[in-house]
């Protein structure tokens, strides 16, 4: 009973004109590039490369005044990367596509004119590594290539062991994989007020992971952190415009 009362009063509060005027909600989406901050140690012909992905989210802003707001941006984001070998081992690779459900929370600082404004976001995020997919090719020692004549030189490992190509769901290992990720974020962009109703924006954002993707399960463990660069665009609607559109246009 107490819980229901709380919910009803919260909804009522949200619907008051004053609060509506402070709240904005919207959608955004964009492209990202994720770099895995790690090390291959002394492994020869082996490296990690960044991979692109995408993000979609529902930004929610609460404005304290005309220059400061707090923003939550719950959504879906991919943090992909690739492990690759080259030279003699060219063709051996694995692309990791990692899906996260992420909740960034940030302070939103605006500056500039009434319609066109610049903004800066600073905050942190929490993310849950929901699923993963691995696609790649490895040498299969049980799938031998044709015999190589003694006088013939070779160029790739696949001439000896043919490639095994795979594209499968990533299996989490609870001993190793840390699925919660926390980190910092910083972003900057511009926003434009359109027809007094919508604010469209473009933003560049950087997510700096502070949580190792792996639990601490071994001495001399090489950590893995996500560094994600996002370029995104979106649109925000003032709640007041949704509940009282006529008053909004009259302003």
């Amino acid at each position, binding site marked *: 009973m107490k819980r229901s009362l709380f919910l009803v009063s919260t909804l009522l509060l949200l619907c008051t004109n004053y609060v509506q005027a402070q709240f904005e909600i919207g959608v955004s989406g964009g492209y990202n590039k994720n770099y895995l901050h790690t090390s291959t140690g002394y492994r020869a012909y082996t490296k990690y490369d960044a991979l692109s992905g995408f993000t979609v989210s529902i930004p929610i802003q609460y404005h304290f005044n005309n220059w400061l707001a707090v923003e939550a941006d719950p959504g879906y984001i991919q943090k992909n990367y690739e492990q690759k070998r080259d030279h003699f081992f060219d063709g051996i690779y694995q692309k990791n596509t990692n899906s996260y459900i992420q909740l960034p929370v940030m302070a939103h600082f605006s500056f500039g004119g009434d319609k066109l404004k610049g903004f800066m976001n600073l905050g942190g995020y929490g993310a849950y590594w929901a699923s993963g997919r691995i696609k790649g090719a490895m040498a299969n020692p*049980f799938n031998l290539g044709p015999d190589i004549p003694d006088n013939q030189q070779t160029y790739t490992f696949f001439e000896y062991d043919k490639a*095994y190509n795979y594209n499968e769901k990533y299996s989490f290992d609870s001993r190793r994989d840390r699925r919660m990720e926390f980190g910092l974020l910083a972003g900057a962009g511009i926003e434009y007020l359109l027809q007094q109703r919508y604010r469209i924006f473009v933003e560049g954002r950087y997510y700096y992971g502070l949580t190792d993707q792996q639990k601490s399960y071994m001495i001399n463990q*090489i950590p893995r952190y996500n560094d994600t660069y996002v370029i995104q665009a979106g649109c925000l609607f003032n709640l007041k415009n949704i509940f009282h559109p006529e008053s909004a246009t009259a302003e």
Partner: protein
Amino acid sequence: MKYLGKYIVIILVLLAGVSCRKEMPEINDPQNTIAANFNEVFDAFWNGMNNNYIFWDIDTVNWDNVYKQYKPLFAKLNLNDSNDVRKGYTYFKQMTAGLVDSHYNITFNDTWLVDSPSISPSYERKSASPGFHNPISIFHFYDTIPRKYLDRGGAIRGFTNTVDGSNQYVAVSGTIQQNILYFFFSEFALKELYKTDTANGVKRVEQYFFDKLQNTANIKGIIIDVRGNPGGALADLDFLLGRMIDKQLDFGYTRSKQGNGRLDYSPWAPAFATPQAGARNITAPIVMLADAWSASMAEMTTMAVKALPNGHFVGERTWGANGPLIGNLFFNGGQFTTNYMNLVYTSSLMLKYKDGKIYEGVGFPPDVEVKYDEAALNLGQDKQLEAAIGLIH
């Protein structure tokens, strides 16, 4: 200016957060280390194992505890004191005693250890187990079996010595009751010896067996005898079994390391034998004869045959060294050297049988178990071979 203080606080908080990442440990290639003292010797070996050993997923040895226990012990040793070197050897033996990898073997460069046996945890375990026995004498295969079990005029045997004289390959083939083919070979170097330009003893035996396989009208069964066989070249799987199948024979999966973490693995890739050009699909029973001394390729071949609908395995549980081996560079894991160790011989890949089980360290079980019987063997009676013949009948 009014809000400058707040901005500065926010930026300082963010900078503090940025410094929260762990530092990358410095991991050196064990092959490029300097054995100037036992600290360095220990670190090179321990880290080499930490990053290259393929079985951490299933191994019960707690490698972190090994570090905590032995790092201080090695720190007390003097590399230039022969007594300490002996003590260090004992520590290495203790550290690795429980490792599941049954290929595992350490040999040393230290001149004070030249007379010491290599460290082989699986051998130590097996030699201490109640059912332990020595390998069946090669003369049993070379003399007794042709004389007692193979058809007169229907047997051939031969051997080939390596150029440096370090190894000798032996092979025997023949028929039993005219239409059961028998083939014994002491190691898997069949393709290599067959492809040589010059004639050699094993090649002659191979040719005999392949001709019989191709030309015997009514093959009643085939017995492939890999008792005492320590393994060898993986290429022999297709070279031998590929002559008896008409479609790909899937029998398991392998995976390698894929990162420096102990639990960083590639996906499981299928393990199979591929039919060879001109192969004859054998539908008669194919029986593998293997024993506790059948290791590595001998076990993988046994597993592959067992995966056939007409495949059988008679004998004893095998050695339990199933993981294929190749140089460290190829799969970023497995065997490595250090400045102090001549070789840490360990598998490059982990093998899982098609039933989902990993038989590393435990051995592959026979479907018809016939224990080693020394007394019978001394009388020239081979109960395992007789059971294989009986199974075909």
